């Protein structure tokens, strides 16, 4: 009997131990111990989700989120899950200093990504430099040239500042261009492009026969296009923003730019976004314009196709650009840069990560990336591509190769220029 009694007694002792163990695990102390073992790696950033840059910002963020989900599905980084801490900067430079201070001082994130575009990024550059923090840039233009932060790495394909204008002028000059017309919006990015174009033209003794800046929000371009046409330029370099890009192409369609023009385009923002391209339709034909990624054969690297499969599905739900060629794959590539650096270094030591990023070439879904000392790409990977055979009101056509033929850079080239511009428009 006593044995029988003692048996349940020992059982209950065991149960007591188990309960105590469970209680410790569930207590705040135990929980924090468990979390400490696998606290997530937090990547902080602001992203324009309202305001003028929101369209691009949201697409870019979706790219980063797809990377986060991929890496977490593979078990995370250093055995820890990856978590994003994202705030909306309202597309404004005045919001970002406080946001990044919150990320660094209050949230104490492990790594920082920059917001999409130059303006919101500019005010945080001195801050990250002062604190010695690694920052992965997101399509800002020459934001580090004055600051000289050696832990800045831009995911954009820009490369050296003058390469953009050089590549376009190369194409124009090869087609027999001997003079240039310059038309640029009075806004930050367009003016930066115009400035480098003037410098490159000056070096090459290429006369600028027309140089016009127009105020933002201009909608009617017929007088400007008439004045441009009257100067009979061979190369027309346009640096414009989405609403004006559409206005300029409409005016060109009505008035024409003359038979002298060999190439037209170069720095027109907006012609990379699905909705704008769908709206413009056949007006796009013949235009040679910059881009960052296009669905041409030469542009597919390891993981690119899988990325776009996921993006296309999630873009509908996230209500962002259905094509997403311009920014989203580069957001994913930002993540890949960090992934490779952290794996190689084996820790989150910012200095070591920066050293690794500076000294190596990194495989990403947008091709190999190597950085020069200023944190921009060593070589430009900005595409110059010509629109061909585009029909009206059809978004899906842009998913197939051949609609935007890559003329530059050489290693990614998928066709030859059709010139003059008037002939290419047909």
């Amino acid at each position, binding site marked *: 009997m006593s044995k029988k009694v003692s048996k349940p007694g020992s059982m209950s002792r065991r149960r007591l131990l188990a309960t105590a163990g469970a209680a410790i695990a569930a207590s705040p102390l135990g929980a924090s111990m468990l979390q400490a073992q696998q606290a997530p790696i937090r990547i902080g950033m602001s992203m324009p*989700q*309202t305001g003028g840059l929101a369209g691009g910002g949201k697409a870019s963020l979706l790219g980063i989120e797809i990377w986060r989900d991929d890496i977490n599905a593979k078990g995370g980084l250093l055995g820890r899950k990856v978590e994003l801490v*994202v*705030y*909306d900067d*309202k597309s*404004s*430079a*005045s*919001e970002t*200093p*406080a*946001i990044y*201070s*919150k990320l*660094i*001082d*209050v949230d104490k994130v492990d790594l920082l990504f920059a917001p999409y575009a*130059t*303006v919101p990024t*500019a*005010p945080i*550059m*001195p801050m990250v430099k002062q604190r010695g923090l690694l920052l992965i840039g997101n399509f800002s233009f020459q*934001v580090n040239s*004055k*600051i000289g932060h050696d832990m800045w790495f831009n995911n954009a394909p820009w490369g050296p500042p003058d390469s953009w204008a050089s590549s376009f002028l190369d194409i124009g000059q090869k087609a027999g261009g001997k003079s240039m017309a310059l038309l640029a*919006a*009075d*806004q*930050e990015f*367009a*003016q*930066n492009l115009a*400035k480098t174009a003037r410098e490159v033209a000056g070096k090459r003794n290429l006369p600028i026969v027309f140089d016009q*800046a127009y*105020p*933002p929000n201009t909608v009617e371009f017929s007088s400007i296009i008439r004045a441009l046409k009257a100067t009979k330029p061979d190369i027309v370099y346009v640096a414009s923003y989405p609403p004006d890009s559409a206005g300029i192409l409409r005016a060109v369609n009505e008035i024409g730019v003359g038979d002298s023009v060999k190439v037209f385009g170069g720095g027109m923002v907006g012609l990379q976004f699905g909705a704008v391209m769908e709206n413009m339709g056949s007006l796009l034909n013949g235009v040679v314009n910059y881009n960052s990624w296009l669905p041409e054969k030469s542009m597919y690297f390891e993981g690119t196709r899988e990325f776009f499969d996921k993006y296309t599905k999630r873009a509908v739900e996230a209500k962002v650009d259905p094509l997403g060629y311009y920014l989203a794959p580069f957001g994913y590539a930002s993540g890949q840069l960090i992934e490779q650096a952290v794996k190689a270094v084996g820790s989150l030591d910012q200095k070591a990560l920066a050293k690794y990023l500076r000294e190596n070439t990194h495989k990403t879904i947008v091709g190999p990336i190597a950085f020069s000392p200023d944190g921009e790409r060593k070589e430009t990977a900005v595409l110059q591509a010509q629109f061909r055979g585009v029909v009206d009101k059809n978004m899906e056509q842009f998913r197939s190769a051949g609609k935007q033929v890559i003329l530059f850079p050489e290693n990614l080239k998928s066709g030859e220029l059709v010139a003059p511009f008037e002939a290419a428009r047909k």
Partner: protein
Amino acid sequence: MTRNGIAFWTGAAVFLAAVFAMTQLVGNQYPFFAGYVILQFVALAVAWSILGGYAGYVNFGTSAFFGVGVYASVFLVNAFGAPLPVQILTGAAIGALMGFALGLLTLRMQGIFFSIATIALTIIIETTITNWRYVGGAAGIQIQRPAVTAPFDNYVQMLFFVQALLVVLAVAISRYIQNSWIGRGLQALRDDELAAECTGVPTLRLKLLACVISGALMCAVGAPSAMYLQYADPAGAFNLNYSVSTLAMSLIGGTAHWSGPIVGAILLGTTQQLLTVTISSEVNVLVLGVMLVLFVVGAPEGIIGLIRKLRGKGKEGEA
């Protein structure tokens, strides 16, 4: 000095002492970044209220004055490497001149026409700066901060303290105006400009004075902002958001008393900062909008007006 005066200046001294102590004791930088923005809006709202509240001339040109302050600093830093006090004083001087010009406008325009003219002012100045390459033009400009001056060990902490000084200055001026003959004259001309003129109130002189003081203060507030951001672009510096927020803060707080804009700016400014780092999406714009509508419907004379109504007795004339 009256009892109220002693209380006010004691309060101001305690506020400045607290701000100073905070810069010496708090290591975390975020409160200074967020606090700077809130203080900036307090000073702007108080300055706006001198013309918009007391005189009843609704000025949509806050962003014009603010932006000119920013670009005055950018120019001075670029050309001479001028220190912060020089930037603020020059900003104030330019703002006073601009205010004078704006005051002359009131000779011909009143009510809605004056307000529209102030929007035009913003656009004209922004276009000018956009085309002025020396200060960066449309592309914007990055500027480097000089070394920080003791006893501060961080530039943002110093800016936070400087902005607190500007707030005290603006509030002191606003309070003085309200309690002096200037305030009574402005109130008279707000109620009926013609009647005021007929009873011997020097309306033009008063309007000019209000414009000059309000303009100088708003420009002075803009000046340190260049150093805060270390970057300036016309679209940011002349953002209409400054005008709209300032106006909303003054109206929500109440324009009849000098403390109204302070209450409004602290409430709205803090909410904006909190929403940016909490909800942080399109929803925060909605929340602000709903808040505005609620206040306009529930408290048309602002929080100060609401408090007075709840107390059941007007305390006009006191401060």
